């Protein structure tokens, strides 16, 4: 590997390490950091590209942070670049959680902590509802969306395997697109 490419990989690693270290809550909370590091500081990508990269990250499985890191890393320095960026964004969480897991169980045995987590558990539900509202706002509001939401919700509550539900929803989405296309052609 050429030295210049090695240096670029190292820069990718450092930038995404910082992104991983300073974002709490993950996902969309990362956008401002990604913007600062990749657009303003290193001009690896252009301002407008961010939205496209996010759209791709959202329409592929897995955490948005990983998807974005892999994508930008690949565009800048190929497979090595994507590996460097992905490793960088994962490493801070990995180290921090590894350390926390050493004493989390003992920590949970303290009475005050037990009380604290009783409160936190109630708060967490509110946090998840917040994420839910955000996702709902970003979702297309048409009849098929509502039908899928209703069907997926009922089957999930009844205990149907989550993977089956996801695959079926993808197929229904695809089928509805093909049907609407055919009807469009008829007209």
């Amino acid at each position, binding site marked *: 590997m050429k030295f210049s490419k090695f240096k670029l990989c190292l820069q990718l690693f450092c930038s995404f390490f910082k992104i991983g270290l300073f974002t*709490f809550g993950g996902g969309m909370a990362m956008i401002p950091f990604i913007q600062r590091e990749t657009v303003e500081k290193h001009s690896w990508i252009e301002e407008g590209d961010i939205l496209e990269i996010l759209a791709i990250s959202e329409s592929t499985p897995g955490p948005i942070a990983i998807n974005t890191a892999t994508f930008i890393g690949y565009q800048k320095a190929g497979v090595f670049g994507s590996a460097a960026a992905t490793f960088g964004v994962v490493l801070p969480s990995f180290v921090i959680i590894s350390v926390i897991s050493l004493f989390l169980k003992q920590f949970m045995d303290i009475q005050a902590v037990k009380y604290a987590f009783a409160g936190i558990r*109630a708060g967490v539900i509110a946090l998840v509802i917040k994420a839910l509202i955000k996702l709902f706002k970003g979702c297309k509001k048409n009849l098929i969306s509502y039908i899928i939401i209703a069907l997926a919700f009922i089957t999930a509550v009844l205990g149907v395997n989550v993977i089956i539900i996801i695959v079926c929803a993808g197929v229904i989405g695809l089928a509805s697109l093909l049907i609407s296309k055919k009807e469009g052609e008829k007209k």
Partner: protein
Amino acid sequence: MIFLELFYTFFKIGLFTFGGGYAMIPLIQSEVMEKSWATSEELINFIAVAESTPGPFAINIATYVGAEQGYEFWGIAGRFLGSACATIGVVLPSFIIILIVARFYLKFKNNKYIAGAMSGLRPAAIALIMSAVVSMSLSVFFPQGISLDAFVSYDFITSVIIFAIMLTLILCVKKIHPIALVGLSATLGIAAGYAEKLFV
């Protein structure tokens, strides 16, 4: 072999989660609780821990579950190996898929079939999180199961009050940080716990 199982399970979780973050909860619930790697209560506790530490939620939970399971199997060495297997497992599907997508960027960008599948996957992710909210609420508000007594118990009433305060804050204050919410609900929880000891 627990390490292979960790890798495989989190690979599956990484592969079938669209939208990231909380969209993972339903699949994590069904996979992790089914294998009794964690109880519902532990998972909800850990969501708060993941919210209060940096990095993507998926990585945090994979690292944690991997460390705990690996430790039971192989001690300290297993702790590291387990967390590495689970984390690599959850990252790998995204990594491979994005590499392919990045190669065929322009084709992918304008692909109608992918857009069609996504139009079904987004609402499904919403529904799955809704069902996660239902099962989480049951385990938080009714840890002993639903009964008439449960509705008048001290724990139920304080949990509902804390939940209501948090939800109001989230809906009314736009830019409130998740850590602030975790901190506040922890404080309220501690206050409620000691108040019960003193007065009830």
